[in-house]
């Protein structure tokens, strides 16, 4: 890995060296060889030409002489190819020499030469041959032969030089290749490590390469690209974070269904809405997760039509949660094809308010209609002649008056409540002594209680700080609560009014009775308009159903509050908190 480039460069150098030396060797070698052979041939020729072979009988001694002088092997053959003289004793036995190429050439051209491997001497030999003539008559041939060992030696010497230079080139090319490749690979390796770090997601900084060639340019480009890339990644991450923040911090529940209709993703809002009840719902179908028929039917409709739709569903046991679920296809996101988005919007509170409003209208109508029907009925009876009977008429009229009074009370209560809600009741706050006001309300309620045989006790300690309140409204509130207490306490029971300083700069007045009490789950609804725990009984007792609602409003408007504790069959305690007077402000 590390030395790959080095080896490439080195191999290239080596190949070039081998190739050039090889070519030089082959070309120069053959040239040298040819030249040497030619030279030897010419030399031999001139020796051969020197030989005067007359008379043929004395030929052997002459030949011996030439062989000695020229250092060659000399053979003389006659016309038929028979060896007449031979200087090499080992070659005497040879047969006809007429077929040899140099002889043939000499016969035709007047001189011949040939280079070949001599089987007799086991060596490359160069042969030259000339014809011997006596006058015009050919009498034989003289052949001179010299081994080519000399030539070989020269060539070998030459090759040795070549080899030496090759070795020098080899060593130097290794060095050069090493230096060159290092110079080349160092910046490339830097770049490689740099991009590797980038790939792993680290922030690699800037690539430092001091070079002005192509590599330097490349490094500059990489730096530029990296900067650009990081900017883009940052922008994308920011975008993603925004989307994720919106997705996860949305109050609405978002559920993403994959292409098979299974729940793929659930946002935090959804988890909060669902609570523990449904556990981990990812990977399930909505039917599996919620077991909700309405939701499933809506999903089926959505799948059939492909149109976004809104469905109201009720989830869970009491208390139910009501959701508006918007079902829509996921669009405009790569990989979102075929996916479905469900957005759960919690409308439980809205539904409750809606129901309360509907109830309110129905209640008001009902409350008004009951006395009105009675009044109309009696009036009708009077008109039809009952007016003539004075006794009956008086009875009827008093009944009519009672119902009219009730109507009036109702309308007054409604006005009070609507004013309180609109903030149109004007309070004149002053410093009110708790004991004083307690005495005055107890005096009023005492009578009513005595009639029912209910004991009224007062436990107002000395030295309570005065409270900040509207005296009339405070009286109204206390009377209302005490009246309720007396109303809902059976004969022989007791009602206690107590007061104490509470923490947080408040004084609390408590009205405790030993009455019928209120079921725990109904306590929260007591302040609702027209809410009655026991409908028939309350109306029998002459209530409008607005009393506690008014008290709640008046307390809140005075900067105080009302708390109710109750146990069914044991009694109820209403606590009224008033702020302590801190001087006129």
């Amino acid at each position, binding site marked *: 890995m590390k030395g790959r480039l080095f080896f490439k460069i080195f191999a290239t150098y080596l190949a070039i060296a081998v190739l050039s030396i090889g070519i030089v060797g082959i070309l120069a070698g053959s040239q040298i060889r040819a030249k040497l052979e030619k030279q030897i041939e010419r030399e031999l020729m001139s020796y051969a030409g020197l030989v005067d072979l007359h008379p043929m009988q004395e030929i052997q001694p002459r030949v011996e002489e030439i062989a000695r002088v020229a250092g060659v092997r000399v053979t003389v053959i006659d016309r038929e190819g028979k060896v007449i003289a031979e200087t090499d004793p080992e070659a005497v036995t040879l047969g006809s020499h007429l077929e040899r190429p140099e002889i043939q050439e000499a016969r035709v051209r007047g001189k011949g030469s040939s280079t070949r491997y001599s089987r007799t001497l086991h060596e490359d030999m160069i042969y030259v041959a000339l014809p011997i003539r006596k006058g015009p008559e050919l009498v034989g041939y003289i052949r001179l032969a010299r081994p080519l060992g000399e030539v070989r030696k020269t060539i070998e010497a030459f090759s040795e030089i070549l080899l030496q230079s090759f070795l020098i080139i080899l060593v130097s090319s290794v060095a050069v290749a090493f230096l060159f490749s290092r110079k080349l690979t160092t910046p490339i390796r830097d770049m490689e490590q740099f991009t590797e770090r980038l790939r792993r997601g680290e922030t690699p900084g800037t690539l430092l390469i001091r070079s002005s060639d192509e590599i330097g340019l490349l490094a500059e480009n990489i730096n530029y690209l990296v900067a650009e890339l990081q900017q883009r990644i940052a922008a994308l991450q920011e975008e993603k974070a925004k989307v994720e923040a919106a997705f996860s911090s949305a109050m609405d529940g978002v559920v993403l269904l994959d292409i098979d209709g299974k729940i793929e993703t659930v946002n935090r809002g959804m988890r909060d809405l669902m609570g523990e009840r449904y556990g981990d719902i990812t990977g399930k179908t909505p*039917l*599996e997760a919620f*077991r909700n*028929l309405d939701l*499933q039917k809506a999903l089926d409709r959505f799948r059939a039509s492909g149109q976004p739709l809104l469905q109201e569903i009720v989830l869970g046991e009491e208390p139910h949660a009501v959701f508006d679920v918007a079902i829509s296809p996921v669009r405009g996101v790569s990989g979102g094809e075929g996916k479905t988005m469900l957005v759960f919007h919690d409308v439980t509170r809205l539904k409750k308010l809606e129901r309360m409003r509907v109830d309110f209208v129905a209640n008001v109508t009902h409350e008004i209609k009951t006395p009105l029907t009675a009044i109309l009925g009696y009036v009708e009876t009077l008109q039809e002649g009952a007016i003539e009977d004075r006794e009956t008429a008086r009875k009827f009229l008093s009944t009519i008056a009672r119902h009219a009074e009730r109507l009036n009370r109702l309308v007054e209560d409604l006005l009070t409540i609507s004013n309180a809600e609109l903030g149109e009741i004007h309070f004149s706050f002053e410093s009110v002594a708790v004991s004083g006001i307690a005495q005055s309300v107890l005096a009023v309620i005492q009578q009513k209680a005595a009639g029912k045989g209910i004991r009224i006790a007062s436990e107002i300690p000395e030295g309570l700080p005065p409270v900040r309140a509207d005296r009339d409204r405070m009286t109204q509130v206390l009377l209302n609560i005490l009246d309720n207490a007396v109303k809902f306490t059976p004969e022989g029971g007791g009602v206690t009014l107590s007061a104490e300083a509470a923490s947080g700069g408040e004084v609390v007045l408590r009205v405790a009775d030993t009455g019928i009490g209120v079921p725990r789950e109904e306590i929260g609804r007591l302040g609702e308009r027209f809410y009655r725990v026991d409908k028939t009984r309350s109306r029998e007792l002459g209530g409008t159903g607005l009393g506690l609602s008014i008290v709640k409003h008046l307390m809140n408007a005075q900067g105080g509050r009302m708390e109710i504790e109750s146990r069914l069959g044991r009694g109820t305690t209403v606590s009224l908190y008033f702020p302590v007077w801190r001087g006129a402000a």
Partner: protein
Amino acid sequence: MEETRRTITHYERELQEIKQNLLYLGALTEKAIENVTASLLERKSDVARQVIEGDAEIDRLDTDIEEQCIRLLALRQPIARDLRFITTAIKINGHLERIGDMAVNIAEKVLLLNEVPQLKPYIDLPRMAVIAREMIRGSLDAFVREDCELANRIRRMDAEIDTLNEQIFRELLTFMLEDARTIHRALLIMQVSKNMERIADHAKGMADMVVYMVTGINVRHQWPGDATQDVCANKRQDS
């Protein structure tokens, strides 16, 4: 190769569909019980009538699921796990259909009860309804998740329902002994209670089948006490 893979996927999709349909049927029966309970507590006869009319959908889905299962049995000839799955599905389907009928039975009694003054406040009956629904939902959950432990828990819940049923019976008996005029209403309420108890029995039957599906052991006629505690320990490994 490609061909077989597609067939398997298609087959699995068919199994999935049966699951989803059973869940839907379960949701329908649950809703029926919820509605019939509400119609009893709030004395709303129209809700009771809705439950009676709604049974047609339950019956239709029951037929559909059964056909689906039989077709799968015939065409795919499933073995081992798949076979147990489908037989379980058929059984659960039957139980759910019967639960729907019980809800109708209750609705009919509610219609009669709503015509006469309420004998007493209903306290145990809504509790039975809540448990019965929980058992249906739990059994189906166990079926879908192949959760033997959950199925076993559901099987044990049946005892609670039985206790409540007996409690109602004793209470109504005292009413009847004291005042003969209450007998008619008391008997109607008893039938409501009895049907609710039967619903729980069917839910338990579903849970039994889930145990069979997961373990291959038939626990239908065993009391889900300590003896079968470790029934889930030997899950079948064949597939």
